[in-house]
């Protein structure tokens, strides 16, 4: 693992007899090649070669990742959130946005009766992936940093400003209840 050689797409890494190809590689005609630009990591014991990206990479959401999404639908016990990007790499969109489900029991450490008291369609939310299975992503907004990070007034679409645990419309003065993140409007 001491070799810090950087490979580029198409670069020959070894024969399939020498190594199995891991992430960032592909095999063709008995050889292993790099598919991305990155550090060549050789595990001699496992006889495996990988390329660890040095460029930015297309984001793939995984369990434990914090993501940013838009509330698409609010039902009795579930909010559906259209996941747009990873929180750590906001600039880069997901290849295909995925729908995550936030159950009312995962909104907050405190008891929440109805999810519509805490989220509204159109809210921008930061949430954590609890379960990531094909076609089913479960989200959680437990934790002070998680929850709504940007929202507009349900009456006049004015900008909502954080006031304590509530949000107040800067336009009409309407006060709305949300699961507000500690980073509300801070990083947008």
């Amino acid at each position, binding site marked *: 693992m001491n070799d810090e050689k*950087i490979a580029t*797409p*198409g670069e020959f890494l070894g024969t399939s007899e020498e190594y199995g190809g891991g992430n960032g590689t*592909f095999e063709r005609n008995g050889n292993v090649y790099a598919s991305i630009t990155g550090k060549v990591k050789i595990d001699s014991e496992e006889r495996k070669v990988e390329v660890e990206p040095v460029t930015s990479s297309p984001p793939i959401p995984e369990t434990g990742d914090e993501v940013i999404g838009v509330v698409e639908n609010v039902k009795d016990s579930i909010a559906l959130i259209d996941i747009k990007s990873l929180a750590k790499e906001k600039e*880069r969109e997901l*290849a*295909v946005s995925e729908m995550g489900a936030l159950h009312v029991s995962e909104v907050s450490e405190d008891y929440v009766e109805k999810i519509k008291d805490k989220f509204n369609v159109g809210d921008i939310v930061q949430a954590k992936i609890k379960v990531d299975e094909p076609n089913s992503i479960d989200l959680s907004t437990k934790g002070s940093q998680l929850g709504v990070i940007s929202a507009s007034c349900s009456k006049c679409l004015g900008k909502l400003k954080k006031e304590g645990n509530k949000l107040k419309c800067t336009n009409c003065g309407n006060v709305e209840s949300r699961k507000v993140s500690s980073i509300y409007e801070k990083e947008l």
Partner: protein
Amino acid sequence: MVKVEKPDEFIDEEGKRVDGRDLNELRPVKIEANVLNRADGSCYIELGDNKIYAAVYGPREVHPRHLQEPDRAIVRYKYSMAPFSVSDRKRPGPGRRSKEISKVSEEALESAIFLEKYPKSVIDVFVEIVESAAGTRTTSLTAASVACADAGIPMRDLIASCASGKIDEEIVLDLNEPEDNHGDADVPVAMMPRTEDITLLQMDGDLTAEEIDEAIDLAKEGCKQLYEEQKNALKSKYGGK
């Protein structure tokens, strides 16, 4: 900008071309990866007097949705010339020429990218010609492929692209502007250098079958040289050897 009058002769007694190059010599080339902050991947290239930026976004969601392919990503290639980049006589505008260039460039890139990894998505490639001096379509493609790699998009290989052509009965590499305007033929080629698979091949002008073979072979040599510069651009940007 290079003067575009037709010279009396394209090749002098010593076998040098109007800009002093040998017949099989590329114009000076400079490639830099990751030059634009906002893009997911980017590249700047100079080849002779060509100055071109390529920016890549994605893979990302396709709009409008009916363009989605259920089992793979698509590539959208937008080729545009800055208004001051070409003489009026040659300005292509958003017309047929740039559409045709976009289509063949999309196909070339699609053959190199592992599209099946990103179903239903699009990889958007924007190419901006800041200065144009013959060979923009091939030079743009060379830059676009580096920009895709810079975006971390998995690929079988980079795509290197350049043209050969015919002037004064000789097959030469990488036509400059007077050669392009007044020469006898132009053969743009793109390939994946590892396998030498050709992903773009066009022909403009009169060539015999033998000359075509010679022109393709010469362009492939040019692509291999550009490939070295492409790899260097990526490796030097990210601190490798």
